[in-house]
């Protein structure tokens, strides 16, 4: 219950200050934004708080949602789930991400929980991961020695493991423009309760349709069925270049199971998770297709 004492606290006022602090504190440093993962884990006794807490909530420059000139998207690390849920731009163009943000925890968790925190916590059940994978997003990592970009898929290494190096801060997420054609994307989660859930199985899907209604692009990512959120390449291949008939959609969804390596845990058996992947993927494809078709207007 009690959170251990004897640590230091830093609340940098600027990004440069934050980066300098992280360089100075090295391995001792741990970044806290909304605290919805870090502080909860510490209170539950699962993980100690870091020795040096670097609170980045004051870095307002990281709280921005911006469209880029050619139709891409730039998200600051401090953008909250509620920001994503409410942003017109995200709701209009990046619907899978808006879907996911609206599903996170409670209203309170959505208000304080951040995109950067969600990614750095690296839970296989994270909501924002699968949508960003289908948007081919990259994370921006900044340190005293410079800035590097890394595809999200390469950033997430396993449960609670990322490619973040000591001294580095995840400052934002960049998303390239969406593919040509009518594009639709959706994120769907299997929910036991109507609210306050954590993913047992989730799926994000992006499809692009040409004038004939053929899938010129299909991207599919899964939540909570592998050590990280993962793309389901076989399923994508099964859909790409095809007319998305009911049968083809179902067949593609069935092939998504190949990407799943689920475990038995308190929330579900591995068998159940494996069986749910095609169901949830199929529904997510259908939702994405519906949105793509509505683009026609």
């Amino acid at each position, binding site marked *: *219950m*009690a959170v*251990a*004492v004897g640590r230091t606290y830093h609340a940098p006022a600027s990004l440069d200050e934050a980066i300098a602090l992280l360089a100075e504190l090295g391995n001792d440093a741990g970044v806290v934004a909304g605290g919805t993962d870090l502080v909860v884990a510490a209170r*539950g*006794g699962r993980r100690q708080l870091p020795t040096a807490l670097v609170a980045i909530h004051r870095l307002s420059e990281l709280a921005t949602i911006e469209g880029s000139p050619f139709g891409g998207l730039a998200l600051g690390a401090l953008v909250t789930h509620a920001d994503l849920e409410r942003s017109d731009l995200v709701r209009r163009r990046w619907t899978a991400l808006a879907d996911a943000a609206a599903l996170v925890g409670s209203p309170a968790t959505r208000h304080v929980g951040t995109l950067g925190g969600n990614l750095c916590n690296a839970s296989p059940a994270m909501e924002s991961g699968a949508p960003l994978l289908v948007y081919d997003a990259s994370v921006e990592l900044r340190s005293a020695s410079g800035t590097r970009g890394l595809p999200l898929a390469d950033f997430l290494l396993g449960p609670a493991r990322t490619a973040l190096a000591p001294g580095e801060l995840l400052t934002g997420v960049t998303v390239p423009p969406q593919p040509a054609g009518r594009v639709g994307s959706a994120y769907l989660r*299997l*929910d*036991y*309760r*109507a*609210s*306050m859930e*954590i993913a047992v199985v989730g799926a994000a899907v992006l499809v692009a349709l040409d004038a004939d209604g053929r899938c010129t692009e299909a991207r599919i990512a899964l939540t909570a069925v592998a050590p990280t959120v993962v793309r389901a390449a076989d399923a994508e291949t099964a859909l790409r270049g095809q007319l998305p008939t009911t049968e083809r959609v179902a067949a593609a969804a069935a092939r998504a199971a190949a990407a799943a390596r689920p475990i038995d845990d*308190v*929330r*579900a*058996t591995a068998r*159940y998770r494996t*069986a*749910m992947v095609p*169901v*949830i993927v199929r529904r997510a494809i259908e939702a994405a297709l519906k949105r793509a078709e509505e683009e026609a207007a």
Partner: protein
Amino acid sequence: MSRVLGRRFVRADGLPKVTGQARYAADLVLPGMLHAAFLHAGVPRARIRRLDVSAARALPGVLAVLTQDDVPFVRFGAAVEDRTLFAHEVVRFEGEILAAVAALTPELADRACRLIEVELEALPPVLDPEAALAPGAPLVHEDWQDYSANDGIVRDGNDCGFVNIVKGDIEAGFAAADEIVEGRYVADMSHPVPIEPHAVLAQWEGDRVTVWSTTQTPFPARNGLTRTLELPESAVRVVVPHLGGGFGGKCEFHFEAHVAALARAARRPVRLVFDRRQEFTATDMARHGIIATFRTGVRRDGTIVAHEASLILDTGAYATHGPVITEIATMMAAGPYRHPNMLVEGRTVYSNRTPAGSTRAPSGPQVCWALEQHVDAIAERLGLDKLEFRLRNIVAEGDEGPTGQRFEKIGARESLLEAARLIGWGRPLPPGDGMGLAVGWWFSAPGPAGCYIKLNADGSATVVTGAQENGSGSVMGLALLAAEELGLAPERISLVYQDTDAGAFDSGSSGSQTTFNVGRAVLAASAQIRDRLLRMAADELEANPLDLELVEGVVRAKDAPGRSVVIAALARRAQDDGELITGQGNPPAPKMPDSLGGSCAGRVAFPAFAAPAFFAHAARVRVDRETGVVRVLEVAAGHEFGRVLNPIGVEGQVEGGIVHGLGIALSEGTVFRDGNQANPHLLDYKLQTAADVPAMKIAFVDAPAADGGPYGSKGVGEPPVVPTAAAVANAIAAATGVRVRHLPMTPVRVWAALAGEDA
């Protein structure tokens, strides 16, 4: 029943609760107060090889460290005296307390716990209650024969309470049956989950200790303290500040003695506050996991002619109230049906799980869920409508209960018809939807109660009882009873309660007994004041007391309301004349109905069900066949509580019971991995949220009980939680064509049942 009762009112403890002024046990702070922490075993079964607290004692800021060696060796328990305050030689569940620490800060107390050196020799845990009953099975309590137990409890090895009901001739019944239907159902353990975790604060003054506790039962808690610490009752005062819910989880005696012993050793006040994990793993009032098997013989016309049931209740590491709850379970396994021939057997089985006990309507929801699915299965076999089959067998006035009691006017049939009417039974439904019904019954619990009322000189009154307000409003409602009897506005009545030094003995907020018992005491005490006021007013008005009534703060002539005298004036005058107007009531408890008595074994507390309440719920669900996810769209409830005295309060109990029941149905189950709970937190032990709640429709059936509580009322708190899970189960079966025989009916289990598997 007129001016006050039956209307909506605002409870007296409401304002402090909405403003944050209401203090709960964890909010209390005393000067010099230390913080307690427990070292729990963390493993389900082990022999204690070594327990060395010297390093913890040496830590600066630690003022007391206690183990079983530091307190009297006293075994205690509600039904069987099978436990000690701290683990003694062996560990029987993961939450067993090895040692307790009092230190200056919570952080220091935790550190001290980590400094305690423990060597445990792990033993294979006993987790399968059926295997535990087999001859030669490892014993959870090797010394069980040395324990004392309440008279009449039948024990044998891991079975700490065998109970049965034997009625008629079961073999002849089966011989006369056209169809015999069998079924087996398994329910996981679940938890009461009050939002307020346990907390205790103890302070000694000389030889007396005051303990502020989150108990639902201050007097049984005091009994536990006096017994385990070998103190006289006069030396112990248990006070409950506001209580943040209990649902049975705070019944009996828990950690009051540990904290009092720490405070005595440290010579300082000590406070203990549980976290949520402890609330799950270290308390001892979980809802029993059960295994229920039924075999029922019926005639083609739908008449039940033979009913056999076997129940196994997993009581966990200690008996707590287990044997008594098994008694209740056998009554629930009969259900509110006519049974000419019946054999029900119940066993209370030790395991190395967290102890089970008195969670709201103990055994009720699980056994009702099993029985009512079985009843649906019988109706299906006979090709009868499920409402019709129940109507053909449900009990009514003049019928005989399972143990031979004769029912007076009751509303079982009417409650069932109300639930069916409210849900629109039989109407066409969209594909994927299903509707289910379930009926049940529950007892009122006659017991001793006392009340003292003082009429103040300004005509207000103070009602003093030993009753405990768990949040349900039953103690708040006592003001209504006094107000009705004394002709006062409820706001003019203040209440003193949940303090063992103030009120008379009370069995607490358990068994839905507060209004039933304490309410009668309030009426008796009110009657004395009323009589005195009537006589004084009669003198003044030169009238016959029989012609007067107490209404709206005055005593007045019934036929001439203008002839009146103000009650406040009478009270003031009496005091000025040297007389205080007080009333005291401790009426005898209603008698248990006559029953078969001797022909049944293990019947200690429930030879019959006194003033039983009857009820039925109906549910409409939508099942996602691909995922097994069930959404409950609608619940309708018909309840007979004798008479409803406080509608807003009773509605609140029914709505809360339904939603609690939905949790039991769908999402609340304790998951064990090798004897340790794998979901001791609210993310994975899932309560229903505001967003999950379906539309609820409620109807009350009026059937005042001759031998009931005030105005013929019956216990209200527990019945509403009983039939919801059963109604949902039957609705799932109606929607899908398959029965889910494992509770809770999680998506994984519904999906597996649809796939023809047993999850």
